[in-house]
């Protein structure tokens, strides 16, 4: 085990259970493969492929919202898709996080003037990380996951300080 290499063989670690869970959560963020526009090619497919390789951070794609921790809203959300977005978000188990990827998911993007487009995915679900770009590069999605990781770690720290 990797912990053995860090701490020596047969070592014993004391930590609070929630802290332990948060460590696990920060290191295995499984995202829902939910591509609704061109951003999916950069953020889900290219970044998940061998060149950018999400897997080394423990970030895998899942085909079912019931197995996912993170949802990447990768594309324009229109009024028809808004129902599906909310439904999938509601099906994900707690704790869950959402990344708004690209200009469309953040504010409506280049389609913001059209009456069938929702002006940002944050109108439908709470967003944790906003990624600008049209589309963002796969590196920026990696950075978004690092930010999310930081967020989870900070939450664990705050919780530890409070208790």
């Amino acid at each position, binding site marked *: 085990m990797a912990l053995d290499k860090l701490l020596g063989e047969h070592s014993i670690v004391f930590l609070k259970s929630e802290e332990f869970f948060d460590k696990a959560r920060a290191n295995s963020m499984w995202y829902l493969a939910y591509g609704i526009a061109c951003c999916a090619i950069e953020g889900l497919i290219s970044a998940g492929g061998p060149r950018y390789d999400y897997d080394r951070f423990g970030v895998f794609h899942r085909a079912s919202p019931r197995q996912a921790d993170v949802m990447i809203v990768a594309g324009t959300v229109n009024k028809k898709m808004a129902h599906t977005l909310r439904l999938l978000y509601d099906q994900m188990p707690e704790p869950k996080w959402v990344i708004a990827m690209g200009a469309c998911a953040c504010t409506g993007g280049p389609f913001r003037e059209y009456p*069938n487009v929702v002006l940002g995915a944050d109108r439908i679900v709470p967003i944790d990380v906003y990624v600008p770009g049209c589309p963002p590069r796969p590196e920026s999605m990696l950075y978004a996951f690092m930010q999310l990781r930081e967020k989870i770690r900070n939450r664990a720290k705050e919780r530890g300080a409070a208790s």
Partner: protein
Amino acid sequence: MQLPDVTATHSLLAKAGIDATCAQEGPGVVCRVPAESAARTLEALRDGDAAYAYMVDLFGVDTGEGLEVTYHLRSFAREEEVYVRVAADYDGEVPSVWHVFPAALYPERETAELFGMSFPGHPNPKRLLTTDEVEQPLLRRSTAIRTPEEVHTRD
């Protein structure tokens, strides 16, 4: 792909008893016919000598004065393409041509929804792309888009 003979196409349609005006316009040879004879025109072109057996596309245009529906046909026998165009009023009607070209089923639903018109005779005239919350026909010129203030404040 080459242009079909305008006079031959016109005489073919005249023989079928259709009041058509054929001319070479922007996209190619365009035959304008009355809306009620659209299906008969397509039938005559499909079964005629040139055998326009394939419907490439069906689309609507908002010209500013009214709507236009264009049927884009292709003949593999002669490698020719022809456009049949009918005019319709806003919220008007053009009879469905799905019994001539079943390929028209989906584009007719799309055109009906996005231009706010109807194709009587269509077996399944439901909306195709948007939901009930989108009430305006989105591709009409009169459909208002969001103002810069609305976009800026995201209301």
